[in-house]
């Protein structure tokens, strides 16, 4: 494995490092407050590895939710991951033995890094995907483990540091915008999401947004005809 690829992967993953440590910490703190120790939070972060769903899972664990409810809730919260996979089928095609892990580790943040990798030789991309996935996973486990270990004794105010994840998505959006002339998909995504947010509200807008985006892109492809 080349050293400069490791450097590229690490540099790309720094925003995720800060975001995951902070959100992982708060996850650990929440779990601790419900009476679950560091091993629980490390295990959940290692095996579920889906941020928002883990917070929801804590609620489900503390209530007497049926396993059917748990499964259904997970589908609703994590449906967007199907969407990420759809756009990574080609990129992850020739990743060999690492492929199952790469697919498992495809979180929102890892997706934002691997769908928009920095300039590099095509043969290095596989190493980049693997390194970014492993690094992000480690940050996440470490953050949640530390969170339940330390509880709420952090010496300074980190209020607002989780904005790093929002900033990550905004910067990827800006980078994508600058690197293409065709802004229809970006505007479609923005318009569809805002529209669905206004209609369906914050808790229910993701699935209708995804459907609307798929519909819009399908229509766009028809109009583009043979070119697409």
């Amino acid at each position: 494995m080349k050293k400069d690829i490791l450097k590229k992967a690490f540099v790309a993953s720094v925003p995720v490092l800060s975001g995951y440590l902070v959100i992982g910490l708060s996850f650990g703190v929440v779990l601790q407050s419900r009476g679950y120790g560091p091993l629980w939070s490390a295990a959940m972060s290692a095996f579920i590895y889906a941020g928002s769903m883990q917070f929801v899972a804590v609620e489900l664990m503390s209530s007497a939710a049926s396993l059917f409810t748990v499964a259904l809730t997970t589908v609703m919260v994590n449906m967007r991951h199907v969407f990420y996979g759809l756009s990574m089928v080609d990129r992850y095609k020739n990743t060999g033995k690492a492929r199952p892990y790469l697919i498992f580790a495809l979180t929102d943040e890892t997706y934002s890094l691997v769908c928009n990798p920095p300039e590099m030789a095509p043969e290095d991309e596989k190493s980049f995907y693997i390194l970014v996935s492993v690094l992000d996973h480690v940050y996440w486990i470490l953050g949640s483990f530390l969170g339940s270990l330390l509880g709420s004794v952090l010496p300074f105010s980190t209020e607002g540091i989780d904005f790093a994840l929002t900033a990550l998505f905004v910067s990827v959006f800006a980078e994508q915008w600058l690197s293409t002339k065709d802004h229809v998909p970006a505007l479609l995504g923005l318009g569809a999401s805002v529209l669905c947010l206004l209609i369906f509200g914050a808790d229910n807008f993701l699935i209708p947004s995804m459907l609307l985006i798929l519909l819009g892109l399908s229509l766009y492809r028809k109009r583009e005809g043979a070119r697409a």
Partner: protein
Amino acid sequence: MTHSILVIAVTALVTLVLRFLPFLVFGGKRETPAYISYLGRLLPYAVMAMLVVYCLRNISFAAAPFGVPELVSCAAVILLHVWKRSSILSILGGTVCYMLLVQLVF
């Protein structure tokens, strides 16, 4: 205890299935269908916009601070990015801007 372990197991399993689904359906040895390749090229642009909206979904324009810290910091990220095109600088700048705004101003 048993219930908690089962909740974790089911959550992990369902998440895993969702993540594998598109690869199981379209990721075989056969050529990827043209439509899926098309989605692979254009979907990331739309998804990133959706993720930004997802992150900002809970801000309220009806009550103080009216989403100002979020919108100003997002604008800072975009301006920094257009200026230098360095992801680290854009993200760091936007995050520090947001932390300052929520801790000191609002």
